[in-house]
């Protein structure tokens, strides 16, 4: 704030994220109308987001559709289609996160009319920083952390882990070979985010996935 008011000062007072937030609200309204519950799945690259979704596809079947966000390639969408769900790939072409506009565009191309469909999972671009700032219109935000990444990641990326509804710790089949302290990760996440729900799973072996999917199903109401 300047002491001497310049003559040509123009007040703007607008949140920079207001456009994204407005489109996110439109997405939320559209999905509510169609009675579809939306998840935003955020993790670093290689934490197992697509494998988690493949495992969820076995539980939810055609009730679930997926939006895949990647910088390049349709690989993840093809994996989801092979698992039996409708998938739409967003190729961000370099952007490090999905925004509400990209999701709105994807929703415009997807078949949301199927009577079976009541769950939409949005797989964000692999990144623990940028996606945390963008509301996509989701009902549940899930932070996925895999044990090879280390138990110190929660406090290193507080912007994400303070904003998630669920902390999903993946690759638990490897935990005995690593020095990942599960209790520490959970405790640090709860300190930032007291209401967070935590599930430990191995999407590869299926361990813990039924409990997690059951929780999602209950939340869908």
């Amino acid at each position, binding site marked *: 704030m300047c002491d001497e008011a310049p003559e040509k000062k123009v007040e*703007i007072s607008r949140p920079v994220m*207001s*456009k994204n937030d407005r489109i996110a609200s439109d997405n939320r309204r559209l999905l509510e109308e169609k009675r579809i519950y939306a998840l935003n799945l955020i993790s670093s690259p290689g934490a197992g987001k697509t494998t988690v979704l493949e495992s969820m596809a076995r539980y939810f079947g055609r009730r679930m559709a997926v939006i895949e966000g990647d910088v390049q390639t349709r690989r993840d969408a093809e994996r989801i289609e092979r698992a039996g769900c409708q998938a739409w790939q967003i190729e961000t072409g370099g952007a490090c996160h999905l925004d509400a506009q990209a999701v709105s565009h994807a929703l415009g191309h997807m078949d949301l009319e199927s009577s079976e469909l009541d769950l939409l999972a949005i797989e964000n671009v692999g990144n623990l920083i940028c996606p945390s*700032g963008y509301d996509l219109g989701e009902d549940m935000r899930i932070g996925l952390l895999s044990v090879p990444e280390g138990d110190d990641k929660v*406090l290193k990326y*507080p912007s994400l882990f303070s904003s998630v509804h669920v902390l999903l710790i993946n690759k638990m089949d490897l935990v005995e070979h690593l020095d990942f302290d599960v209790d520490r990760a959970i405790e640090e996440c709860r300190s*930032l985010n007291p209401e967070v729900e935590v599930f430990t799973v191995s999407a590869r072996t299926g361990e813990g996935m039924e409990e997690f999917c059951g929780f999602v199903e209950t939340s869908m109401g």
Partner: protein
Amino acid sequence: MHEMSLAQDMTRIIGDALGRKVRLERVNITVGPLSGICGESLSFCFTEIAKMEGFGEPELVIRKTEARLVCLECGGEYTAADFYQGCPDCGSIARRILSGREFTVDSVEIDEGEDRDV
């Protein structure tokens, strides 16, 4: 995070508010400590984007706020400059966030010598 796309959002907001593109002397913004935004990186990106978008080379003035938090251990309310600052009374970092994620374009100052569309 993604400062380049945030800088683009900022020039869009400024362009919409002014209704035209003019050379700017200064852009005043507010950034909360929990917004995840790196001020230095944003300044770097914004200078480039503003020039490309026809807003001259404005100085970006960042007003940094403090976060307001409520301690879940002792119930005290306190302010913090980042995510890691715990409660000054009991040291706990278990808290509820009241504010600190804000990121707004507050005002712009048009270049004195500028009174025409670019």
